[in-house]
């Protein structure tokens, strides 16, 4: 029977030959990831349910990245990191990446890739809705709550309903004024924030496979913004090279059968697409940059698991190089590795970090930071009735801090162009 890539991976994980959309199945989990916001309550539930002698099903498969509220004086936030540290020490968790050490990585979804936990054909669960990011590696990955995570922690298993799949084919190669963010904003505008509920979003086509792996992660990262269970891109040579450099774990590459069944198929010619924004207050509130250009801004933000990767900064630096920002602009690299790359990547001999700093932008330490508002001392947080343009993934009311603020989501090119003018600006004006 023909199956999609998601169905094939779920079949393998559940020990079946075939699975069909709508079936509830029990999966064997390959990796469980958690962080400082949801780790402590997950651990508490696991202890409550499995008692004093609670055992972790497989320590090598548990990965903990503190990343959300890191550089803050908030005592309760710091207490959460203390709980993780103590837990990792007590139970001997090798895959714990502590704050304030060389091991600290930054945002979990990017760190999972960088540290070799994303392995094609496997199943990864995390206590974060953007866990779907890992699907860029041809694997099944999705977010769960604390209770489900605690269940996995004790058993290595979890139930899931096999999703129907939506297929998005991007034909052609991206012109220089577009990034993966423009593509996914188009998708969200087309399917809306619940158009993918309980579905897999499968991305295909030259427009996807010509992208580097970190740009592909922008597509899968925002699958959840369409309500999807997972986003997925089949592994190719680029994926294999990236994975082999970071892990020697065995992997298996799956592809959708040519006659696999989809709930719906979408097709795009990327050469004809426009730079996009999602207007306040929803990621599906699609418009072209041209239609909202001139909107006055108070802040620009380039960061997060979806918009703070090396490709994002290379794109932004291309526009910012040699110019000055007109409004406060924050560069918050997703991971400490990306932060190091800001020093080593150069344009005409100038490092990306220097390009941003010379322009007057503030380069911050890696963490989730203001993408989700965070404690009041979080860098780049939206205050009062600010208007922000950001490369992050959500612009719900209050998402970046103040309930009165308005957030536009856009590509790093568009945010960079806007930072130089202080108003929403089409990147083609600078390219």
């Amino acid at each position: 029977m023909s199956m999609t890539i998601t169905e094939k991976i779920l079949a393998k994980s559940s020990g079946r030959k075939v699975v069909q959309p709508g079936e509830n199945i029990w999966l064997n989990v390959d990796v469980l990831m958690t962080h400082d916001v949801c780790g402590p309550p997950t651990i508490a539930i696991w202890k409550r349910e499995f008692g004093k002698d609670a055992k972790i099903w497989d320590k090598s498969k548990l990965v903990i990245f503190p990343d959300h509220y890191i550089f803050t004086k908030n005592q309760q936030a710091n207490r959460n990191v203390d709980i993780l540290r103590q837990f990792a020490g007590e139970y001997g968790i090798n895959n714990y990446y502590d704050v304030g050490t060389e091991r600290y990585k930054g945002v979990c979804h990017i760190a999972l890739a960088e540290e070799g936990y994303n392995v094609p054909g496997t199943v990864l669960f995390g206590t974060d809705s953007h866990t779907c990011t890992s699907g860029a590696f041809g694997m099944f990955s999705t977010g769960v709550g604390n209770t489900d995570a605690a269940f996995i922690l004790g058993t290595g298993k979890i139930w899931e309903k096999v999703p129907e799949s939506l297929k998005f084919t991007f034909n052609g190669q991206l012109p220089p004024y577009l990034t993966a963010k423009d593509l996914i904003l188009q998708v969200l505008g087309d399917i809306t924030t619940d158009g993918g509920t309980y579905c897999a979003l499968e991305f295909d086509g030259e427009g996807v496979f010509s992208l580097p792996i970190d740009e592909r992660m922008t597509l899968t990262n925002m699958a959840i913004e369409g309500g999807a269970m997972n986003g997925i891109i089949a592994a190719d040579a680029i994926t294999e090279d990236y994975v082999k450099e970071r892990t020697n774990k065995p992997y298996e590459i799956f592809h959708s059968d040519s006659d696999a069944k989809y709930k719906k198929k979408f097709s795009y010619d990327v050469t004809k697409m426009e730079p996009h924004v999602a207007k306040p207050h929803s990621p599906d509130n699609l418009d072209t940059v041209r239609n909202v250009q001139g909107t006055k801004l108070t802040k620009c933000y380039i960061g997060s698991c979806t918009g703070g990767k090396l490709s994002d900064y290379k794109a932004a630096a291309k526009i910012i190089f040699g110019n000055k920002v007109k409004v406060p602009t924050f560069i918050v690299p997703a991971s400490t590795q990306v932060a190091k790359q800001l020093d080593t990547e150069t344009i005409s001999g100038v490092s990306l970090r220097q390009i941003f700093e010379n322009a007057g932008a503030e380069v911050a330490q890696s963490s989730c930071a203001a993408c989700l508002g965070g404690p009041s001392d979080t860098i780049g947080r939206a205050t009062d009735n600010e208007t922000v343009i950001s490369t992050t993934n959500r612009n719900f009311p209050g998402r970046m801090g103040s309930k009165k603020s308005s957030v536009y989501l856009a590509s790093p090119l568009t945010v960079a162009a806007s930072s130089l003018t202080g108003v929403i600006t089409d990147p083609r004006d600078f390219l």
Partner: protein
Amino acid sequence: MEKIIKGKAYVLGNNIDTDQIIPAEHLVYSLTDPEESKKYGHFALSSVPPAQAGLPHGNISFIKGDNYQSEFNIVIGGSNFGCGSSREHAPFALQIAGVQAIIAESYARIFFRNCVDGGFLLPYETPAKLYDQIKTGDELELNVHDNILKDLTTLKIFNLRPLGDILPIIEAGDIFKYARQSGMIA
């Protein structure tokens, strides 16, 4: 599980995301300390834009003053309730505030799973758009046995979608109790 849930309606619209249910800045409190966890109740639904808070008129606070419990124990929503982050703090906050059931057209997957697997509250689906038919403050009676919602204020009756596949987990209490009953874990 209670078979009949009675109480007052708090009515919301479509796409109530988890940042509106419990803003991210509050995700730092303990969920296990009984006193500290009351803060989740206090800040429940605190980021819903005022005009949409308590339909049809809006501007009705879910939590009054310094309280951590709401006078409303049944939440009515539209489509895609609970979209956004995976934070289980969201159904937890509603539970601490005293909410026993939500009745909405549809739910975001993770929020729905969290309600069921954590045993926080009942996430019922309805084929009808209830937010134009039920008003905040209406007295409701939810019959979980028959999947029927009565508005005692207007005497309207609504059929709800049966809980289906997940009923055994709800009846057991949560996913751990279900797994013990079915012999999956000790």
